[in-house]
């Protein structure tokens, strides 16, 4: 089975960002394909490498990055939502004339078309949000 996972909330404030991660990992362990994880709305805040949670707490961005490395999955941050919220990579930084970037490894920035295309070519869309 091919999955697309949509994540609508940032880390820590809502458990839904955790649920999305747990579901994605379980699907991969089960041998399914995760075609794409699409970070939408405040979900784009999962993709910052600048987070430093306490030592005894989970590091949500790092956990996603590790999953992407291990299973070669596509972590896409919605560009319009990311621009509004200040999540950007080096090329977005240059394009927008900003002086820093913060996207975590394993994530990429792209448009809503990636969500639609993912849904068209997958078997299931599973949405996690508030």
């Amino acid at each position: 089975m091919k999955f697309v996972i949509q994540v609508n909330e940032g880390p820590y404030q809502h458990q839904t960002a955790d649920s999305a991660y747990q579901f994605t990992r379980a699907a991969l362990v089960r041998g399914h394909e995760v075609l794409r994880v699409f970070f939408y709305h405040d979900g784009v805040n999962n993709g910052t490498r600048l987070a430093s949670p306490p030592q005894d707490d989970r590091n949500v961005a790092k956990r996603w990055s590790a999953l992407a490395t291990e299973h070669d999955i596509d972590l896409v941050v919605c560009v319009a939502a990311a621009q509004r919220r200040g999540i950007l990579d080096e090329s977005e930084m240059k394009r927008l004339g900003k002086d820093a970037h913060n996207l975590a490894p394993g994530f990429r920035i792209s448009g809503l078309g990636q969500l639609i295309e993912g849904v068209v070519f997958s078997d299931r869309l599973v949405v996690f949000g508030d």
Partner: protein
Amino acid sequence: MIKKCLYLNRRAPYGTSYALEAIDTVLIGSAFDQDISLLFIDDGVFQLKRDQDTTDVEMKNFSPAYSAFEMYDVEKLYVSKEAMAARGLKKRDLIVDVEVLSDSAISDLMDEHDVIFSF
């Protein structure tokens, strides 16, 4: 490949940005030649209220977009009869022409779609 996509709108406008984002997603979806329907239930019916004026809250009034859907061949808009009644809304209060459905017709509508986008 064409899928029957249902965009499900359950939130009031402005309090959260879901209504605005749903419009963006629908317009992108239309470019992919998908079979698109929009359904407004619960507080989602408030999205279609006429006369929205966001001057004083200094936010963008996105309600004209609903009238532009037709140009993108997005023509199937459904609202819940029960949701309208509970909120004292009549069809003439809405900014666009919609089909009013009973809750059981809405169940059937959800059933017959391939995928549901929740906003």
